[in-house]
């Protein structure tokens, strides 16, 4: 187990390096010269050259990359073009807001997915199963931004049960946890919906596979109760692919949160990326993508380790 852990941790280093290279190169894709973009159309060639030198753009690519990487590792992501504050200052608080939203969504999608999946899987062909499978099919194909709009119309605008936008109420005095949760409900459901559907379907099929396996009859022949057979043995066997897919969903949640944040004006990193793209404020986009991806890689690492802990056969690979 330890060996697997060390191996897995070591393997993310080259990946993270590769990610940094891709992010760096992505910024180089931007059409047009950045110095010209900063100075505007009236710039003279000398001024452009000066700005380019000050930005280090005259050096070869790999030197630019290493300089940039060095700064990033120290937490310096440069300055935002639009707002003229250090990018880090802009990005970090938003990042935690997204973590909150993603966390809430994760809880929703795992709980709903597991419950619906287990009940459907153990009661195949029942009305619950049919209803569950139809709804998950529809939900899995629903665009997050559209679902958010629909929920907003019905539950916020028409029924008034939940607020339509934002993370907290406008009045500063109301920044309680309850207020936060109240604002989180619709966005979390929106973000979680597709993942919950995917998880439910997978849990169901995983359970069906397990239940059909021979050892289930053998377990019953030992006098174990149905509950023990399903929840103790069935779950442990069905869990590895489930944990795997939950890990995959975290990536989707982080991406899907972007649409939710835009729709509900949730001040997270997704919304930040969106507004920075609109404002062509690319250093911010760069930093946001880098941070989010980094966290995603770590989460995947965690998932793999958990799967290996649950399924002894994986560790051999």
């Amino acid at each position, binding site marked *: 187990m330890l060996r697997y852990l060390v191996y897995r941790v070591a393997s993310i280093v080259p990946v993270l390096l590769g990610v940094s290279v891709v992010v760096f190169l992505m910024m180089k894709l931007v059409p047009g010269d950045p110095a010209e973009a900063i100075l505007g159309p009236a710039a003279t060639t000398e001024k452009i050259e000066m700005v380019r030198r000050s930005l280090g753009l005259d050096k070869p690519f790999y030197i630019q990359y290493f300089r940039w990487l060095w700064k990033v590792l120290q937490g310096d992501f440069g300055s935002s073009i639009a707002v003229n504050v250090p990018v880090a200052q802009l990005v970090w608080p938003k990042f935690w807001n997204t973590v909150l939203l993603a966390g809430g969504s994760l809880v929703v999608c795992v709980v709903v997915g597991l419950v619906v999946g287990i009940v459907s899987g153990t009661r195949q062909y029942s009305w619950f199963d049919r209803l569950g499978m139809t709804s998950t099919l529809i939900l899995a194909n629903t665009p997050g931004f559209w679902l958010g709009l629909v929920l907003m119309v019905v539950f916020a605008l028409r029924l008034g049960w939940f607020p339509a936008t934002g993370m907290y109420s406008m009045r500063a005095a109301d920044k309680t946890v309850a207020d936060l949760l109240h604002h989180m409900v619709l966005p979390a459901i929106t973000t979680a919906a597709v993942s919950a559907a995917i998880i439910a379907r997978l849990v169901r099929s995983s359970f069906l596979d397990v239940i059909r*396996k*021979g*050892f289930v*009859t*053998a*377990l*019953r*022949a*030992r*006098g*174990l*109760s149905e509950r023990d057979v399903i929840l103790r*043995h069935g779950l*442990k*066997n069905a869990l590895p692919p489930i944990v795997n897919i939950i890990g995959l969903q975290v990536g989707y949640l982080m991406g899907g949160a972007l649409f939710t944040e835009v729709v509900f004006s949730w001040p997270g990193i997704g919304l930040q990326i969106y507004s920075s793209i609109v404002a062509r404020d690319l250093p911010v986009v760069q930093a946001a993508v880098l941070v989010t991806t980094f966290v995603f890689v770590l989460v995947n690492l965690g998932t793999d380790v958990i799967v290996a802990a*649950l*399924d*002894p*056969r994986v560790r051999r690979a």
Partner: protein
Amino acid sequence: MSTAVDLPPLVEVQDLHTHFLLKKKVVRAINGLSFSVGRGEILGIAGESGAGKSVLCLSMLRLVPQPGRIVGGRILFEGKDLLGKSEHEMRGLRGQAISMVFEDPLNSLDPAFTVGDQIGESLMLHKAMTRSAARQKAGELLRLVGIPDPERRLDNYAHELSGGMQQRVMIAVALSCDPALLIADNPTTALDVTIQMQILDLVKQLRDRLGMAVLWITHDLGVVAKLCDRVVIMYAGKVMEAGDVYDVLKRPRHPYTRRLIDALPKLGHPEQRLIPIQGRPPNPADLPEGCPFAPRCYKVTAECRSQAVELVDTGDGRAVRCLHPEE
């Protein structure tokens, strides 16, 4: 024989019928099966594949999967009908008074739990042992079934063991709560012949030491000859012949039994031609009237095909279901 004739049998199956109710047809897996197992007796149930033998094992534990159902007959265990018991009472018997060993050990052991965990689970459930006491008993059980270095094996997973060892583990699990009856569904088919012999020896020794009765299902008459005290020959969900093992194998009365024995190669007769039985077992969804073996029988007459044949007790501990038995 190792049982006293006047003690009531441990298990008495009377006219058992187990059917599978499919959308367009009914599969009659067991059609009026009757036999008994005495205390401490090893009874073999032999027949070709598809005769309903596995269904019989599941029926005895009332674990027949949907769409199967036991539709008739009685299964008396220690005098009481199992078919009248509640599911709760059955759970109390499974793994305790009656336990089972399956054909494929890899498919009968949970791959996600260690061997020790699984043996211990039964012990903690049925005997209310503590975890440490269960672990210790599990180690003793592994030693009992002949697994070397048992303490280390407790922490192994099923896929880390060889086929023979897996089957021994299965037996250990089955014996953990001192069953009165051990049902074994063809547990040695997947094993090498030498390992198979070891397991058969082991089972005989365990029966001698612990006194449990064994119901051993197989299609291999060689196994029956080596292991069993009595044998029941099964065909199309019915008993065709029953009796003491040596009697039946030396002087078979039913033509089917005769054919089964003829199909076996015999040591020392290299020139012998193997005679397979012509035809195939009947489709349990579409059973013919009269004797089910009639289409393949060398002694068949018109009566055989038209009238139902009863199982006749011929005294001397034997029974035959045939209108024209040998001898």
